[in-house]
């Protein structure tokens, strides 16, 4: 399942609910998940909020494609991808990627693949709101690029 949401979400609750509702009891031996959370500091500056923009339509399509590609490369039973958009505050969960499989290799590798592809290709953009300092008033800036995860 792929979800893009304006609303704050609880990744632990989403994992628990999805795992119950996917009805795969006895089939999965592994679940690997990644949760990305908003920090209050970036590039040495205090950040008090963030706006996450996306490309409605293309973002969903691209995520579908990534998940499909993962399913072709690994033995995957279920996937859950949730990504937040809109206004966020520090400590808000931004992204959840979870993969269920029979064995850990498939779950670990497929979730890593989905996450890294999402970070480098899925059309989302972050704009940070920085705290005011003595030198300057509060300001906003677009994050220029994601760091490599490998």
């Amino acid at each position, binding site marked *: 399942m792929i979800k893009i949401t304006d609303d704050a979400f609880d990744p632990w609750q989403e994992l628990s609910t999805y795992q119950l509702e996917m009805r795969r009891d006895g089939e999965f031996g592994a679940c690997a998940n990644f949760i*990305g959370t908003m920090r209050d500091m970036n590039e040495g500056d205090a950040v008090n909020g963030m706006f*996450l*923009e*996306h*490309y409605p*339509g*293309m973002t969903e*399509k*691209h995520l579908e494609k990534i998940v499909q590609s993962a399913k072709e490369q690994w033995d995957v039973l279920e996937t859950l991808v949730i*990504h937040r958009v809109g206004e966020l505050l520090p400590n808000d969960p*931004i*992204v959840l990627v979870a993969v269920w499989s029979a064995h850990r290799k498939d779950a670990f590798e497929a979730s890593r693949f989905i*996450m890294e592809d*999402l*970070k*480098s*290709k*899925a*059309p*989302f*953009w*972050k*704009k940070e709101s920085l705290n005011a300092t003595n030198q300057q008033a509060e300001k906003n800036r*677009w*994050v*220029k*690029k*994601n760091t490599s995860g490998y």
Partner: protein
Amino acid sequence: MTQSNSQMYEEAMPIKVLYFASLKELFGRSEDQLSVEELSTVEDVWKRVSEGRDISQQVLYSINQEYAEADSLVKEGDEVAFFPPVTGG
């Protein structure tokens, strides 16, 4: 010959062009409806909407919500989008 050329020009293709994030702010708009000539590429469209800027690694582009190449051809009714490197997750 002249007539058919002029007909081609008159039958220029309508397309939709979208901008996101910092590019939307740079251009001061989120969308354009354009007519482009047949055999226009993504790069041709970019040159036109950006007033001649070079298409650089800092610009990504898609046609109908799929990543495209700079020399990909644009068709009538296509949705072309330009945006900066992605920073989600």
